[in-house]
Every structure is written in structure tokens, then in C-alpha cells.
């Protein structure tokens, strides 16, 4: 198993993601945003940060990078892709995941531990989501994490079981629609979430629940 962790100008969580991949098992390497060849990689992580300075909209410019073109092909071929925070924004901008991430409702950057409820289990679910009802303690840190989609799209993704994680009742930190913290694509191989599982892989920082999400990508 070889993990690839994308690195854009402005990424800042790629090293933690790399560390989490190694803990989850296998080898891992960084993939510079200008790389077009993902040959030999078995799973891709699009990490958090502020790719290309978040200019225009978070993730809007990163989606056109050569590495993201390769990720779109990788995802279309069924390869597992995990987008975290800015990576989630990039995957939404790229159309690989439904919806969009907007400025937090209260305009404040939030940085705190939240409880996530894994929302779905089913035959096409990545193993990382296949723990319905399980609670995971994972930190959030973002200013633009308010998940939004039109009502009819929300109904559809709920009906198809694409909501992978919700914030526990009362813990929605940003005003996300229907407490959605993470979604997957219809095929189930692309997963994005605002909280940072790569920051919850060691007891030293209070929780190892994030590791379960990386282990589930294998």
C-alpha cells in the first residue's frame, strides 16, 4: 500500500497527513501539485491548508492543478481519495463531491475538538464510514467550513447515504446544513470532511479516532 499526499503551495497539513498514513500502514510520499503521474499510488489524500492562498474561493484554483487532474482520473477509476478541510473544499470545487463549503456562519475561525457521528453504513461504503452511529472525537480548524447544498441535493445525498459524518447534536461549529461534516461520492471511493483526522492519531493530542478514517481507506 502506497499513499500519496498532495502538496500545493499553501498546504499546511500535508506532513501530519503523511504521518497518519504511515501509522495507518504502508508507505507514503508527498505529491507535488505539478506532478501529473500518480502511477503506483494506491490511495490519495488531499490535505488541509490554504492552497494557492485560497484566492478567489477556497479550493477554486487548486482544482486546476496537474495533480488534481490526475486525482480526478484516479477517482473515476475507483481509487480511494480522502479530502480533509481544504482538501474537501478542493474536491467539492472539482465536482468530485457534491455541495460547497461557505464562510462559517458566525464569521469566526473555529479551532476545537468536536464529536462526529458516522452517519452511514452499507455495502458500497468505504470502511472508514462503515461504522454507523459510532462517535469519533476529532478537531476542526477552519474559517470556511459551512457545508451547503440546495435542499433537493441534500435530500438526494441523504437518500443515497452519501452523508458520511455529521457533527454530534449541539456541536455544529460552523452552521453546516443538516449538521453535515463530511460526504462521500455516489460510488463511495471519494470521501471529504472538514474535521482533521490526521490531527487525531496520537494519545498525546487527546484522541486516536482519526486513525480509524485512514485505516478505513486501506
Amino acid at each position, binding site marked *: 500500500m502506497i499513499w500519496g499526499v498532495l502538496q500545493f503551495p499553501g498546504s499546511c497539513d500535508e506532513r501530519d497527513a503523511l504521518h497518519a498514513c504511515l501509522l495507518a500502514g504502508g508507505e507514503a510520499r508527498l505529491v507535488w501539485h505539478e506532478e501529473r503521474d500518480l502511477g503506483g499510488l494506491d490511495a490519495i489524500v488531499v490535505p488541509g491548508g490554504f492552497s494557492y492562498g485560497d484566492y*478567489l*474561493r477556497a479550493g*477554486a*484554483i487548486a482544482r*486546476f492543478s496537474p495533480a488534481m487532474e490526475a486525482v480526478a482520473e484516479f477517482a473515476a477509476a475507483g481509487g480511494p481519495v480522502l479530502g480533509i478541510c481544504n482538501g474537501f473544499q478542493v474536491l467539492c*470545487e472539482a465536482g468530485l463531491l457534491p*455541495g*460547497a463549503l*461557505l*464562510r*462559517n*456562519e*458566525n*464569521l469566526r475561525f473555529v479551532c476545537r475538538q468536536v464529536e462526529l457521528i458516522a452517519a452511514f453504513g452499507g455495502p458500497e461504503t468505504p470502511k472508514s464510514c462503515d461504522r454507523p452511529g459510532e462517535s469519533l472525537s476529532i478537531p476542526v480548524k477552519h474559517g470556511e467550513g459551512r457545508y*451547503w*447544498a*440546495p435542499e433537493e441535493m441534500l435530500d438526494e445525498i441523504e437518500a443515497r447515504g452519501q452523508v458520511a459524518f455529521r457533527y454530534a447534536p449541539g456541536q455544529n461549529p460552523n*452552521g453546516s446544513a443538516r449538521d453535515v461534516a463530511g460526504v462521500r461520492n455516489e460510488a463511495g471511493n471519494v470521501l471529504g470532511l472538514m474535521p482533521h483526522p490526521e490531527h487525531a492519531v496520537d494519545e498525546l493530542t487527546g484522541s486516536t479516532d482519526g486513525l480509524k478514517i485512514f485505516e478505513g481507506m486501506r
Partner: protein
Amino acid sequence: MATKARVLIRPKEGILDPQGKAVERALPALGFEGVEHVRVGRVVELETDRPDALGELCEKLLANPLIEDYEIEKL
């Protein structure tokens, strides 16, 4: 000859715009009462040799059509 254009991008009607709300709430403190429905968007000015492609350019990059409306003004 390059065409100058101005693109106005704003959050779609019905989507909560917390920046607009924050501005709206700040105004009474300055004595500006009765200002409502403040929306904050952005303006992109550009020059292009392909004015026919402006719409596509907006759809693909300048705006996210899921959450934003845009208007193109050729100058």
C-alpha cells in the same frame, strides 16, 4: 483589441451571507438606521481577447454556479 469587462459575483439569493449580516449589524452603531438585505460579493475586472468565452470563464472559475450568481458587464 482586448475587451475590458467587469464581472460581479455574489452569493445566491437564499444563501446566508454572514459578511453581509455583519456589515448590516455594524451600520446602526454608526447612525445608519434602516439598512437591510446587505449582500457582500466581489468584482473581478479583466481584459480579454476572447469576450465570447467570458461566460464559460465565469462558470468554470470566477464563480461557483452552485452558490454564486454572476453578471458580466462589458466596458
